[in-house]
């Protein structure tokens, strides 16, 4: 019976696989990567983790962080929550004694499922440009970091941009905006705040849901054609984006009135729609392109050395790749800042958390990092785990994205009370006592 014979080596393998985690310590800082390279959202995963890993390699090629080498291992999540949880549990203890700095699942679902665990295990949970909006309030969510841009800031910035286009926020009154959202927790997350913004500025808002995965949007776009909105905000993910653009073209809605959100802004969202995507506008927290010194550095010491992580080298410098690089810069910067306080050695997640909360990226520092213009100025604190809240707008010219605006800031002062209210409701439900930020150094 081959099944029984096969079992023995397998059992051996699993015990070895788990044992190896407990082996001897090294002077390395570890990044557990809950990556996804297959499944419906593989395009995002391969780009993001490609950029992230390449940046880590780049840092290592230049001597590591103050001599501490970075190490990482991948665990495929397929964007599936329980796989992400298994990966989290498997990787959280570190690798060969190198402690885990932070987790970066790039998935709202996995982030939700590992939120409590991250807090209990004291490992920062980084949800760059996404995640739970109220985790911006670091007093209630000490270990969650929706870096740069949380979902509320995202829509607020888009509304501000539309305001600019129509000649001022006061001109929004009477305008019609449709939000086409992915039928999922991610898609729904901003509906409430959009309604608040609509009430504040007096525009007519229609919320239309596209069922997952978004292969068919005929009726939604027919509806849009009937409504004749001034703008359509596209909160898509994966295949929903190109299909939206194609269907818009089919039904004669102008592409340059469609504004894609942060997960509708990559080449993989626009290119498959072909000519239908030309003119499509989206937000981004970082430009695509390869001109930045840090990308040139990666090219020289990683990609040209044949160690690049991308299977398709043409994707170097694309939106997801660059987001991975940005994410790498922020993670490593947090480690570097924390080292300044705790010493140049591998740090615990709790220490790295302190690093994140003390990220100060101004133009000078960004220039040193070779990332001026790639990363927005960022200042985090114990209470503010987002830090930036600004986006730029880009337009697809049929081949690539072209920036068409300067930084547009979200109305963070307006959003903060909503976020705090939501966070304190959560704290109450869960019996969490918020931290007193005055006591944090």
């Amino acid at each position: 019976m081959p099944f029984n014979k096969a079992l023995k080596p397998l059992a051996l393998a699993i015990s070895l696989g788990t044992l190896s985690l407990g082996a001897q310590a090294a002077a390395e800082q570890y990044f557990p990567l809950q990556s996804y390279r297959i499944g419906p959202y593989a395009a995002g995963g391969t780009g993001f983790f490609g950029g992230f890993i390449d940046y880590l390699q780049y840092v290592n090629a230049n001597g590591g962080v103050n001599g501490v080498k970075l190490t990482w291992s991948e665990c495929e999540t397929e964007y599936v929550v329980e796989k992400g949880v298994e990966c989290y549990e498997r990787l959280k203890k570190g690798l060969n004694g190198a402690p885990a700095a932070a987790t970066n699942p790039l998935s709202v679902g996995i982030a939700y499922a590992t939120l409590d665990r991250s807090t209990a295990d004291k490992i920062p949970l980084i949800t760059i440009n996404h995640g739970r909006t109220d985790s911006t309030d670091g007093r209630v969510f000490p270990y969650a970091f929706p870096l740069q841009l949380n979902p509320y800031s995202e829509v607020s910035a888009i509304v501000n941009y539309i305001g600019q286009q129509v000649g001022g926020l006061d001109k929004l009154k009477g305008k019609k905006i449709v939000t086409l959202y992915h039928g999922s927790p991610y898609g729904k997350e901003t509906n409430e705040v959009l309604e608040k913004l609509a009430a504040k500025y007096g525009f007519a808002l229609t919320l239309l849901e596209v069922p997952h995965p978004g292969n068919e949007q005929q009726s939604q776009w027919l509806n849009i054609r009937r409504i004749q909105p001034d703008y359509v905000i596209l909160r898509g993910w994966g295949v929903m984006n190109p299909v939206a653009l194609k269907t818009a073209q089919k039904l004669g809605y102008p592409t340059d009135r469609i504004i894609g959100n942060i997960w509708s802004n990559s080449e993989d969202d626009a290119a498959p729609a072909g000519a239908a995507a030309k003119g499509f506008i989206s937000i981004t927290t970082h430009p695509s392109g390869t001109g930045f010194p840090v990308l040139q550095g990666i090219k020289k010491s990683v990609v040209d050395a044949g160690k690049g992580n991308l299977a398709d080298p043409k994707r170097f410098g694309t939106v997801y790749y660059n987001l991975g690089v940005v994410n790498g810069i922020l993670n490593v910067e947090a480690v570097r800042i924390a080292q300044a306080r705790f010493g140049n050695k591998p740090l615990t997640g709790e220490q790295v958390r302190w690093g994140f909360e003390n990220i100060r990226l101004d133009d000078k520092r960004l220039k040193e990092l070779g990332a001026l213009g790639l990363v927005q100025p960022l200042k985090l604190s114990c209470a503010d785990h987002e830090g930036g809240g600004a986006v730029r707008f880009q337009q697809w010219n049929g081949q690539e994205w072209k920036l068409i605006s300067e930084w547009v800031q979200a109305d963070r002062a307006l959003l903060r009370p909503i976020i705090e209210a939501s966070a304190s409701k959560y704290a109450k439900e869960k019996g969490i006592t918020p931290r007193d930020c005055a006591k944090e150094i």
Partner: protein
Amino acid sequence: MFYSEAGQFSTRYAADRRLFRLRRDRLGLGLLLVFAFAVVPQIGNDYWFSAILTPFLVLSLAGLGLNLLTGYAGQLSLGSAAFMAAGAFATYNFQLRIEGLPLLASFALGGVVAALLSLVFGLPSLRIKGFYLIVSTLAAQFLVPWALVKYGWFSNYNASGVISAPRLDVLGLDLSSPAGRYLLTLGIVVALAFLARNIVRSELGRNWMAVRDMDTAAAVIGIPLARTKLLAFAISGFYLGVAGALWAFTYLGTVEPHGFDLNRSFQVLFIIIIGGMGSILGNFLGAAFIVLFPLLLSNLAGLLLGGLIDPGQLENIQKMIFGALIIVFLIREPEGLARLWQQFRARLRRWPLRY
């Protein structure tokens, strides 16, 4: 002449009724339970509790739920995850809205809600047969998560429709540690598995199998088809509902409706195909396989090939192996791992004699 031997039989009927006829089986099971309840919590670590043992137990229970319906009563379903979702969200709402309701009662009530829902979607089984029935179960599969996302009431108006676990207290014991959650899950799963074994060995279980094997003959000998099928849907729904609640609360700690999508239904179906249809033990073997196999494969690949294969490719390979295994099992061993285990045990009994 019939009654002359009745006396000597009567002691044996009671013995026949026992859950496990062989003494060695009873002993083995007892030892296994002692090990699972007393030893494992001592020697396990967080990883094993949270990432392997708890999901294994929950998936076993889900497999059990589907197996009662498909393996025993012969009604194919692709909507298991919908009933898991119903159980999870119902349990959440019972906890949320009824002050002081004990946790276990919430689980049970969640199961009852899922059972009723399953019953409704089982109604077409009275008119249609075979794989036509998958359309009804798929309707449930798409309708239920949609409703849960759409109507905020189900998730207490959480902006993104995600629910999170209540405190896990049973009789004043705080079971929210990984080991505690494992023990809570184990207790529920073991109790329900024993109940299931009783059911399938009772009149109802025989009626299910009769309907599965030949429904015309079942009707002729007086088995009420409608009642038998609907009970299968309801009881299966109950098991799946409890499994869904456990998935949300003792395993993940949080869940969104799309966590119970079609892929989950397929996963549960694969558990029973690989584990063995019409077997209680098979669900545990199948679930163990589904949970462990991907881990083994990635560990093995890491160990033997030293990262030559990138993880994405590994996942593709794993997917292909799963697919191939399903076909191989259907061709070679439709009764799944459970049957292989029986053969193995039979050989063990003869050991060291070869034949």
